[in-house]
Structures are given as C-alpha cells and as structure tokens.
C-alpha cells in the first residue's frame, strides 16, 4: 500500500523551485516522447522552444500570444487567492470578444479617439457580465462556481458561434462566418512598427502591476487573501465575504473580457469563431505555475505562449500533430501538482495490513458547525 506521509516542515525554496522542476520534467518527458516517435528529440525541443523566438519577429509574436494569457491568468490569480475556483476565463474571454465586437461593429463608421476605449470597456463589461452570473449564483444560491463557470464556457462559445453565423455576420462577407472588419478607430494601436505587438501587451503589463499592488499593498487584497486562507477568521474580523466574492469574480471576469476584446481589436481585427485557442484554460495552468504571484505569472505566461507557438512550429516543420501543445500543457500541470505533493509529503511503501474487523467510527462528534 502506498502512503503519503507529511514531511513536517514546508520548504519555501522548494515551493518556488517546484514550477522550474515541473518545466524541466516536462522537457525530459518531451525528449523521451520524441525519441519514441522517431523524431530527433533535440531538434524537436529546439523547434518548439527556441525556433519560434529566434528572431525579432518571433519575439514580437510571443508578446502577441502572451497578452491574452497574461490578462486571464493575472485575473485568475486574484480569485484563486480567494479560493474561488473560476474555471471560466475562457467563456469570459469569449464574451469580452463578443461584446467588444458588437460595439465595434456599431461604431464601424465612427472615428475618434473615444471609439477604442468604448469598445474595450464593452469587452470588459462582457467578461464581468459572464463572471457576474457565476458570482450571483455562488453568493445567492451557494452554487459551486467550478461547475457553473465550466458550463458557462460552453454557453459563451455557442452564443459567439450563433452571433458570428447570424446577426454579426458580415453581410458582404460571402456568407463566411465572420464579421465585417472593424473600423480603424476601434483597433488597438501597434506598439512596435512592423510587428503585430499591440497595445494589449501594455494593458496586460499594467494589469500585472495593478494586481501586484492590489494583492500585496491594499487592504482589499489582504482581505481577499484572508478569506481564501481562513473564511472563519475573515468573518470574525468583519470582512464582507459576499462583497469580496463579487469583487474577485468581477475583476477576473473583466480582465478575461479585456483579453478577449484585445484579441478581436488587436491581431484579428474582426469577430471570427476561433478567437481563442483555449487561452482561458491555459491561463489556469499559468496561474498555478506562476504560484499566483504576478512575477511568476508573467514568466509562466511567456512559457505558455511559447508552447503555443512551438506546437504550431512543430506541426509545420516536423509534421507533428498540433495536439502536442495540449499534451505539453497537460504534462506541465501534472508535474507541477506532483512536485507540490512530493514537496509536502513523502511516499512510504507500507505492507498491507492484515484484515481486521476495524470498526467504523466518525472522526469526532462535532455537534456544531
């Protein structure tokens, strides 16, 4: 019988090393995998991890991919600190894209500096609307947010598909499921001439700093952390649990919505059915890989963006399936969780106990909640 035994003391260094260890183990397993697939493992790793960013164009594309992942993940770090498990960043991102697109299409002829902010705010509100539903369900009816947010991801995707096949379809688009191209005023300005790096990356970096300040300096952030670690202590100190729940969920939804509207007004420029290759889900891995810390999340989202690009690159130049991206994401999360468990517990192999009629007893009679 395998038994996990607590190690007694937690090592802070190991807690930070765990994501690094997970990344290394993922790479090692990748090497093994490529060998088994008869692909030169070293070449494959170079293709995935280095080739995509070997020139300035590549680095620029990395930033383009990082922005939405980073925005979603930094928002998730706040809710996750509150131990609210918002799995719905993907749906909130899609709703942000949809709301933003709707406004952008209404203002397609409009010109002026005010158009873009309105479009962006619409996107943020779209994400907040979507996470707000989960928040109301959680606060009012104690619904499990993991279930509601996952289910709402599918609803969001289907609403988006309906919109892009129906009301928002470009009337002059030869019946392709795409909206019209947005007006120039509704597009995010490019930050570096000649690349696709757009203003969304700057917004994402700003969000990182803002969340950093919120969580480490503000009393609101402190209350969110206390609520997540110890709801009883938060209640006794008079922290407003419901208000904090709304705040955290709306914040993460809003940032995911911003990620979505940033995609449609940035690299894409119109509403299409595939505005996200699962950025909202990848952000969950990123948030944990970055230890819910802004700096860690920044690094982890760069790595995740690289994996997206590397997966595509491996498909193009090595003929490997695109599922590789998902596989690497999965391995990363798996190894991270395994490392975390083994950091706090050691494995003991115990001989099976002789069968005894061990009677059934509850842990202790806790008569009161």
């Amino acid at each position, binding site marked *: 019988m395998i038994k996990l035994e607590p190690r*007694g003391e937690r090592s802070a260094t190991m807690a930070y090393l765990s994501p690094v260890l997970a990344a290394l183990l993922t790479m090692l397993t990748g090497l093994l995998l490529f060998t088994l697939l008869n692909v030169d493992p070293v070449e494959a790793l170079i293709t995935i991890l280095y080739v995509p960013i070997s020139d300035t164009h590549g680095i620029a594309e990395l930033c383009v991919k990082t922005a939405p992942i980073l925005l979603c993940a930094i928002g998730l770090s706040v809710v996750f600190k509150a131990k609210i498990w918002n799995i719905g960043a993907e749906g909130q991102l899609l709703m942000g894209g949809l709301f933003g697109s709707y406004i952008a299409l209404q203002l397609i002829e409009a010109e002026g500096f005010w158009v873009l902010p309105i479009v962006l705010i619409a996107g943020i509100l779209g994400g907040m609307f979507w996470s707000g539903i989960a928040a109301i369900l959680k606060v009012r009816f104690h619904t499990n947010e993991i279930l509601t947010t996952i289910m709402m991801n599918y609803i969001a995707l289907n609403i988006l598909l309906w919109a892009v096949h129906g009301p928002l379809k470009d009337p002059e688009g030869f019946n392709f499921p795409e909206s019209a191209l947005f007006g120039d005023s509704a597009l995010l300005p490019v930050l570096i001439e000649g690349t696709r790096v757009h203003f969304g990356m700057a917004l994402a970096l700003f969000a990182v700093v803002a969340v950093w300040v919120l969580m480490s300096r503000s009393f609101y952030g402190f209350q969110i952390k*206390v609520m997540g670690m110890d709801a009883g202590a938060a*209640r006794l100190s008079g922290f407003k649990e419901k208000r904090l729940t709304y705040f955290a969920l709306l914040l993460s939804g809003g940032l995911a919505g911003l990620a979505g509207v940033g995609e449609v007004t940035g690299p894409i420029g119109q509403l299409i059915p595939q505005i996200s290759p699962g950025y909202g889900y990848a952000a969950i891995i990123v948030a944990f890989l970055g230890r819910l810390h802004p700096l860690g999340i920044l690094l982890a989202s760069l790595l995740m963006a690289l994996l997206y690009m590397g997966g595509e690159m491996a498909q193009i130049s090595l003929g490997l399936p695109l599922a590789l991206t998902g596989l690497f994401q999965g391995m990363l999360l798996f190894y991270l969780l395994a490392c975390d468990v083994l950091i706090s517990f050691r494995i003991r192999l115990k001989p099976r106990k002789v069968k005894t009629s061990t*009677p059934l007893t509850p842990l*202790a009679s806790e*008569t009161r*909640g």
Partner: protein
Amino acid sequence: MKQHSPPPRLSLRGITKQYPGCLANDDVHLDIAPAEIHALLGENGAGKSTLMKVIYGLVKPDRGEVLWDGLPIEVKDPAQARKMGIGMVFQHFSLFETLTVTENIALALGDDAGALDQLAEKIRTVSEKYGMTINPEREIHTLSVGERQRVEIVRCLVQNIKLLILDEPTSVLTPQEVDSLFITLRQLASEGCSILFISHKLNEVKALCHNATVLRAGRVSGECVPAEEDTTSMAKLMVGDDTPVSTTYPKKLGSTPLLCISDLNLHSDDPFGVHLKHINLTVNAGEIVGIAGVAGNGQEELLASLSGEHLCPDGKTITFAEDAVADLPPDQRRRWGLGFVPEERLGRGAVPEMSLTENALLTGFLSGLLSKGMVAWKKAETFADQIIDQYRVKAAGRHAQADSLSGGNLQKFIIGREIMQNPKILIAAHPTWGVDIGAATAIHKALITLRDQGAAILVVSEDIDELFLISDRIGAICNGALSPVKPTPESSIQELGRMMAGDFSQSAHEGSATL
C-alpha cells in the same frame, strides 16, 4: 483466574516516539497493576496523548516495549487492543449523532456485537450495574455530553475489559457528574479492572488515583502517590520549578453597565445546535464576568451573537453603553471598541499560514494600520513587534507563521493583539484552553490589568477553576439558558455545578444579574 500479584497488567519500558520536529515520548516507563487507578499527569503537549495512542495501538513507538500481564506484546491496531481487553474513552467522542446508543456500540464492536436486542439488554444491565443509567434506544443527539461519555464508557464495559483508558474525562462534566463518574471508576477498579486516568487537574487526581506518573516535555518527570502529595508539589512536577503555579486576584465589582444583553433569543440553524433562550446579562466597566458551562450548551451561539458573526434583527438586544449593536457586523462592533478572543486560535483568531504581522493586521486594521485603503506595513510590523515584546510571545519573529507557534504563545499573541487596541469591552472564549500554566498565568494577569483599566470583560470557559480565579461575577449557561449571575465570593463550586446542570433555583437575590 488471574493472580492479582506479581506482573503488572500493563508495563511500558522505555517508550520513545519521535515526530518530525518533536520528541513526543522520551524513554517513558509506566506500570499499572490490576485494580489500580493510575494517573497520567501532564500539561498539554507533554506527551500524554502519544503515550496512550501507543498503548491503544494507534501509534507505533520508535523504541521501547509494551508488556501485557508480564509478556512482551506488540499492539498493532485498536482492534487488537480491544481484543486484549483495553478500552479507551477519547476526549472527543466518536459517536454517530443520528444513531441509537445500541447501534453506535454495535458499530464499535464490529463482528463481536451479536444480535441488537441482546446487546441492548447487555447495555442496560451493565449501565445499571455501574450506576450510569442510559437508555439503549435513545439517539445520540438527544443525549447530553455527560450521557454521551457514559455511552463511550459502557461501550468499553460490555466487552471483557481489563484496562480502561480515559483521556481528560472530566473536562466535559459538571462537578456533580464528575463525582458520580468517580464512583463508577472506583467500583470498576475494585472488580480488578485497571484504569489509566489522563488529566491535568490535580484535585481530581488526588481524589481518585492510587498512583501517578507525571510527564513533562515527553519525559517522566516524577512518580508519586497523589494522596500523599499536595497539589503544589505535583504541579511543580508538571510544569517545572521556574513557573509560578498559583496566584489570587482581588475581586472588584463595577457599577457602570457597558455590555447589556436583554432577552436574547436565537434559533440555531444547525439541526444539532442549541437555541438561546431569554438571555439577560450585564457586564459593568471594570469587572470580569465568567460564564461556566459544559461544551455545547449554547456558548458558541452566544459568542457568535456577541462578536457579530450572527446578527439579530433587533439591534437593542445587545447594547454597548446604550448603543444598539446587535444588528451590526463585527467590524462595526470593533470600531465601537469591542475586542474578541475566539475559541479557535487557528481558524478564527489567527490565519495559520500568515505571518504574525499579517495576523496583527487581521483585527488591528482599525487602529491606524491603514491609509487610504492601503496597508501601512511598517506600522503593522511595529504593532506586531510590540505585541510580541509586551506579551513575551516566543516566536522566531514577526515573520513567523502563526501555526509555527505553540498554542500558549499564539494565544498570548491573540490576547495581546486585542488588548493593545484598548478595547472597552473584551469577550474571551476559553482563553487558556490547552495553554501551559505559565502562559495561562500571563493571560490571566493581562485580563486583570485590562479590567483594572476599566474595561468590561466577559469570559466564557469550561474551566471552573479558572473562572473562580479571575471572575468578579459568575454564572453558568445550560441548554441555551443563562443562570443568574452572582458575585464570585457568594457562589460556590457546588452551586455553579448545579447551574451548569440546568438547576437555576436560588435561595437569595434575583437582581444580582444587573447589580
């Protein structure tokens, strides 16, 4: 049958158990003869629990051996221990609330239970024989804590028992219930059963036990015959020489009401909770009022309505110096000047994984540690340092995590944190529960000092000795109702015990509650 002479029934030889970061038992020797009532004395954390888990097969010692009737034996698990005739009554009962007494005992016995009606009959016979009448048909949630303990003891007695281990059995009983428990135990011992009585209450050990083994920091610090010792010498064995063991404090009575509860009724949402019934209480400035009671008689509900975790629709039910507060949330009551020390240190009083600085901020945020919504971390650190310094909290520093502190030190930190915010009213639940004697004395002194500065203090505790020591007025809560509150010198342990059992009848003045 058995020879009642040479080999002890149970003999522990050099038991050593190392936990990560803690040597729980260090070369412990212990002998219990048949028919002997043996006390295992020690403070919380002295290693008593580990030792009894070794005997009961729950913990495997690293070194040392266990002899049973003179023969070396390895107790592999509790099932084997029960087969050998060892019975154990834990401090926290393991009973299913919604099942009957018989069903619970049948579950505990496993395959040996036999037919339920025969078992019920046996339970009835055994419980009557030992003067602990219980009705086998009743469901556990309808029983009082004392009755539940009887179920646990009877569960051991329906088997062929040779050694009964009781872990802090009196902590949940009224003084009268304690007396009747002792009668049962003496009868049991006279029939040849050995009893290991684990306690930190010296008076009870003196009254009941033939021999005592005292543990301190995992080691045997002494053995004695309790009847021949006085409590001070035994206390010294328990805590060491350098700790003061007894003090008394002058009693005071205040006259200006600060905290008033008038006709507080509360319907508990918990199906097994206690409803509060017509609670009236006044705590004056400059006095400590103590509320005794057996756990689970409405203390938690009362404390939750005082802290603000449970709100009452009518604000005037609870007033702080005539300001209606019963409908205000905890932070607004704190803003008024309420300090609150909850029962759970880790979990409500402090966040286990947070540093002491952060835990200082947890309730200290109202005393100038914030500016414009931002935390003034420098001030919070200074505040934490002051608490650590003034209340002699042993910790690695303000960066230490709350759960790295011992219970006593964390409690000193929490009490210090509340007192240093100069509360006008302080409510403390079980302030010295599980705390070593040195820390308990420090906590009592801090409470007395705060009282002398004019604060109104309400202490809810299960420890009667503590309440008599520090309270100026005293009362008891039973089944959600509060007894009349009397000046402590006019009350007695017997009277308080009666009140804890729900008998509020009184010879004299009724008006003492609002003196």
